[in-house]
């Protein structure tokens, strides 16, 4: 019974036998990103939220009124990462920032390739650097860069 052939074997693939739909709001955001566009959604109080949210953050109402947005914005808050971690979107020193897309009222999180910490300023104008290959995900935005 010592031969390899005598050992009982069974194939086993670990898989999750369900699919997840991103739904009408995140789905629209992702589809726009794939097409190289940005969108926001109108909240109950008229503010434009980007990234769009399915529910109003204050009243919890369903949201559905989309607003097309440009791929430019301004930095509201940032930090400076000297040594990127292995999974970070950039493998050189960069800033994480909250970026208010022009026409939106709430900021989104992303990376800014600014070269140096001293280049980061409040109200700094930035634009999207699109990923070479886009597939409908937040990573379709490779990062933002000074505009």
């Amino acid at each position, binding site marked *: 019974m010592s031969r390899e052939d005598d050992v009982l074997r069974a194939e086993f693939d670990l898989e999750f036998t369900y699919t997840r739909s*991103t739904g009408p709001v*995140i789905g629209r*955001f*992702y589809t726009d990103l794939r097409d190289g566009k940005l969108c926001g959604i109108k909240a109950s109080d008229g503010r434009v*939220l980007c*990234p769009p*949210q399915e529910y109003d*953050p204050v009243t919890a109402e369903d949201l559905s009124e989309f607003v097309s947005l440009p791929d430019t914005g301004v930095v509201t*808050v*940032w*930090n*400076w*990462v*000297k040594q990127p*971690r292995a*999974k*970070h*979107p950039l493998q050189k020193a960069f800033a*994480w*920032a*909250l970026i*208010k897309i022009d026409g939106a009222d*709430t*900021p*989104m*999180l*992303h*990376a800014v390739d600014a070269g140096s*910490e001293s280049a980061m300023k*409040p109200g700094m104008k930035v634009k999207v650097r699109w990923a070479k290959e886009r597939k409908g*995900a*937040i*990573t379709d935005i490779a990062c933002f860069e000074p505009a």
Partner: protein
Amino acid sequence: MREVAIVSYAQTPMRRDAGANNDVEMLMGTLQEALSNVGMTQKDIDFTCSGSCDYLGGAAFAFVSAVDALGAVPPIAESHVEMDAAWALYEAWLKIQCGKADTALIYGFGKSSHCALPDMLCLQLDPYAMQPLWPDSISLAALQANALLQSGKYTERDLAEVVANSRRNAKGNPKAQLKGDYTVEQLLKEPTFVSPLRKHDCCPISDGASVLIMTTREKAEKLCKRPAFITGIDHRIDAHGLGMRDLTVSTSTRIAGEKAGVHKGKVDIAELYAPFSHQELILRDALGLDPAKTKINPSGGALAGHVFMACGLDRIGAVATSIMNGEASRGVAHATSGPCLQQNLVAVLEG
């Protein structure tokens, strides 16, 4: 409302790496210590509730193995939250309020030494717009710290003062991992890590476990000279998206503090779960605490040792211990969860 009081609390030393000790081994001695403090065995416990994170163990239902430490034969009434054990305490408190139990044992444990905790914490983020970017917990905290500095409310010097106080207070805490005398000037000379935060502004990675026992007034008064009564407890949550809230304040902490009745009396001590130095300042403001009147984090707080999933319970345990020892009459304990103080629990304890 039934009056519920904490009668016992035990904690392992917080260590950077517990080595070959697994969760059960970390827990067993601490459980026995908490039970023997009040002359109890597991048979005296009506309800047991734990808080831990399966991602640390790297397997679904990893928390179940920890039940081995309890000796759960014959079967016991037991529950678990995939949250800090402060929320396990909240569940047990509700169970007692509902009349389904009189005495509850709560435990929390975490062994973070074998994983990259700042990266692992990305898994709690919005899975669509944030998590795929892998913004680690230190990076997000640094964003919040910069928002606070830019607001002009505090300076880097204030952050360093929080750290110096924590290290100094921790000298009196035999369980603390980081302690010592540091001047603000010394700390400010250190280079930034994820700017504007320096390494000492961030909590350490710690392994450990904690156990707490609470019961009704009638039983508590027989078990303990000065039980620590929970006179208020509440938890609230802020919006999921970081851009949806003002990062320089903690609205959920403020509301939880009001609901728990923080200012219905004098606050002798406060233990705040602030994994990053600037967050202690935000929490202090949210709860309206004056450091001249209230001792803040006399244990050293999360900056002196941070057992992920037990640190919030440890804040409650530290306040309860001060009351049981007669060092304080009334105190506030706070626990947090999520990025940049997203979810917060506040408990008021009185002797």
